[in-house]
């Protein structure tokens, strides 16, 4: 084969390939069948976070309700900051570990854990303790990976009011079960960061510009990023200097987990842990008005698990 022949062959063989990036369009299917009225929010308190996860899922029928054998599962904690678990800026590693363990026990084919961090990714993964917590499981089906830029795909947000198109991490969209595990904490702009805000960790692009209309943008995102389960980690809550914290005096330990199928109801209830009302959080209000879920506390069924 000479050079000319080689080039000709390459052209021929690659003729079918185009350079277009695949684009995703998410159809907003109603989750009415999965969301009973009134929506159920389970709350559990206790010091053993591993068994706490089991307890808080019991009212829903356990992990088997969400993960079926052979499922590809994504567990999305908050690993956004280079902080340790005591500082309350990231999801507690034991909570993440227990969730992943239960998903594996429920027969998941693969459980992927990731977050697009704000500080340097390796430092966040290491110092949050979550990387080690996954490694301790010693199960090759449990994978924690750093963001791979190639996996961001442009997504049309058809119902979006503030944002109509964004790059979203592919695994968050095409998995069988997406579990959102935010940590409940203070945030300067939106007052609190809970479930909806945690979805920002699967976004590519310049996320800073979302802050111009943060509440509506987060609600828009909630139309395409659809967790089957939202489990809010309120084992320690950061009351001030969030979302990053750093001062242990700002952290209060309340050993609480909040779980719900409906993300808006989960956020609405978790707001009360900070002595705030659901209406104080712009993203909760915006998502509620878009019909994404209930925020009125008297129309949410809260179960102590």
């Amino acid at each position, binding site marked *: 084969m000479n050079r000319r022949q080689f080039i000709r062959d390459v052209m021929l063989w690659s003729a079918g*390939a*185009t*350079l277009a*990036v*695949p684009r995703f369009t998410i159809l907003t299917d109603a989750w009415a069948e999965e969301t009973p009225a009134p929506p159920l929010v389970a709350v559990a308190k206790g010091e053993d976070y591993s068994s706490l996860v089991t307890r808080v899922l019991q009212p829903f029928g356990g992990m088997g309700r969400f993960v079926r054998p052979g499922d590809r599962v994504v567990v999305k904690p908050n690993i956004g900051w*280079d902080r340790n678990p005591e500082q309350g800026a990231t999801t507690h590693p034991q909570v993440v570990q227990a969730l992943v363990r239960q998903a594996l026990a429920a027969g998941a084919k693969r459980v992927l854990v990731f977050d697009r961090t*704000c*500080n*340097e*990714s*390796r*430092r966040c993964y*290491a*110092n949050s303790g979550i990387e080690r917590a996954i490694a301790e499981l010693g199960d090759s089906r449990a994978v924690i990976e*750093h963001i791979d*830029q*190639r996996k961001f795909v442009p997504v049309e947000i058809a119902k979006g009011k503030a944002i109509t198109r964004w790059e979203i991490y592919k695994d968050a969209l095409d998995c069988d079960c997406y579990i959102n595990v935010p940590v409940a904490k203070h*945030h*300067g*702009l939106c007052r609190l960061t809970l479930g909806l805000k945690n979805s920002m960790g699967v976004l590519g692009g*310049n*996320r*800073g*510009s979302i*802050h*111009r*209309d*943060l509440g509506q943008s987060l609600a828009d995102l909630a139309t395409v990023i659809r967790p089957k389960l939202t489990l809010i980690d309120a084992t320690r809550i950061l009351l001030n*200097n969030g*979302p*990053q*914290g*750093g*001062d242990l005096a*700002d952290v209060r330990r309340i050993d609480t987990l909040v779980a719900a199928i409906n993300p808006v109801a989960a956020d609405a209830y978790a707001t009360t842990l900070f002595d705030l009302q659901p209406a104080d959080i712009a993203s909760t209000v915006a998502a509620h008005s878009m019909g994404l879920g209930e925020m009125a506390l008297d129309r949410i069924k809260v179960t102590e698990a």
Partner: protein
Amino acid sequence: MRRGRLRPAPSSWRALGQTLFLLFFLTLLVKTDYAGSDELNWAVNLLFRIDPFLAAAAMLAAKTVIALMLPALVTLGLTLLFGRFFCGWVCPMGSLIDASRRLVGRPVASPPRPGRRQLKYLLLFFLLTAACFGLPLAGYLDPFSILVRGLTFSLQPGLDHAATTLFTWTYQQAPSWVNAITEPIYSLLRQSVLPFSAKVYGLSLASLFLLLAVLGLSRVEPRFFCRKVCPLGALLALTARFSLLRLRGGSAKCGKCTRCRMVCPMAAIGDSREIAAGECTLCLDCVSHCPRSRIGYGLRRQAAPAPGGNDQGANLSRRAVLTALAAGALAPLALAPRTQVRHNDPLLIRPPGALAEPDFLDYCLRCGECMKICIGNGLHATWLEAGLEGIFTPRLIGRLGYCEYNCTLCGQVCPSGAIRKLTKSEKQTVVIGRAYFDKNRCLPYASATPCIVCEEHCPTPDKAIKFKEVVIDNHQGEQVTIRQPYVVETLCIGCGICEHKCPLAGDAAIRVTSAGESRLGQPALPEGY
């Protein structure tokens, strides 16, 4: 003495040694990175600490003994024993020059041309004197600095870009059976030679060209840089003149045979086939080529030097040496009237733990290690902002990257202590600069649009960026309540993450300047209070 047919030539042992040392140093370079713990486990900066030229220059400039660089004495001691083996066997730049010889060199061996090799000695004398008198330029010509800067600033990021482009294409376009092959390869590359994330570097092209120039000079004659330019080579050559062991054997008895002269890449062998110990790098090419196996390695003979002196030696004239010394001593005088004596560039933000500016310039080796390891990709090579002698020194450019709050790696990797090694808590209180808002562009001020990304990222536990709630008119004339951020000067440490994360296009609306930095000895306006 005749070699058996299957025994490898002596010079192939040298080639093996070169390969191993080169791989070792490349491994150290790749390991110059965060590895999951706050402390570095490897002496990844070893290369720069065994460099006696940089050690001498830095110590002369700083007028003190830099303990970190004392391992350089080992190199000198070994050279005194074994000769200039370092250049022939150890130096990674020399190995690369040899490796690229076929690529850039002439196919026909050039006849030995000993001329102008005194240039490297004169450069050595000039650079050391200039460093002593206040103009530290040693890092510009040190082979390791040139090499590590070229590899770090340009070649490794280039390799990363090439691999990422290729494997992004296969990932997005190729069928899954192709990806079953390519993805493990990409993953392996990511874990081994590629940087963790895509990085950019200031002066990347200049660093690449400098490295390519050093390699390309071999086109003029073999090992041109080592023969004529390298000041480290010059220092080792001066030491090797007194070495205990050396190559010898050729003499007038060899008759008309000049094989050794023709193959010697250093042109170290004279007309009468005697070998100049200062120039010989013990590459053993002559040993391999000598048809009578006359050349051997052994103790120095006490015999008188060949009549007329060795024509391959340094041939330094007293006048040239004195001129080099005088130039080195006088050149720094030209620096006195520079404006930076009174006013530094306010955008020249030095890494946390950096010594006061004049000391920093004296100690800094321009080796690029801090910029290699900076996990925020915030440290970049300075151009002329710190003066003629400040090129390739590190500065923080907030828009390109930032200083990670809990990270202390640059101080750990600095081979000379130009950046002090700080504990985490020390580092978090060192002020490298302070942020200020450009209220004409900052959204909550300029257009009553909510945005406090800077406040969100501000890493100090008591945030240095706070906000106040104000009621102002927006562009539509409506009254809106908005949170406007401001900087608390006493809390800001200048890490630059606010500038880096500011979501505005172009320049950030919050910028860091060196104002308020906590290192001492900064120039102050003498006419001020």
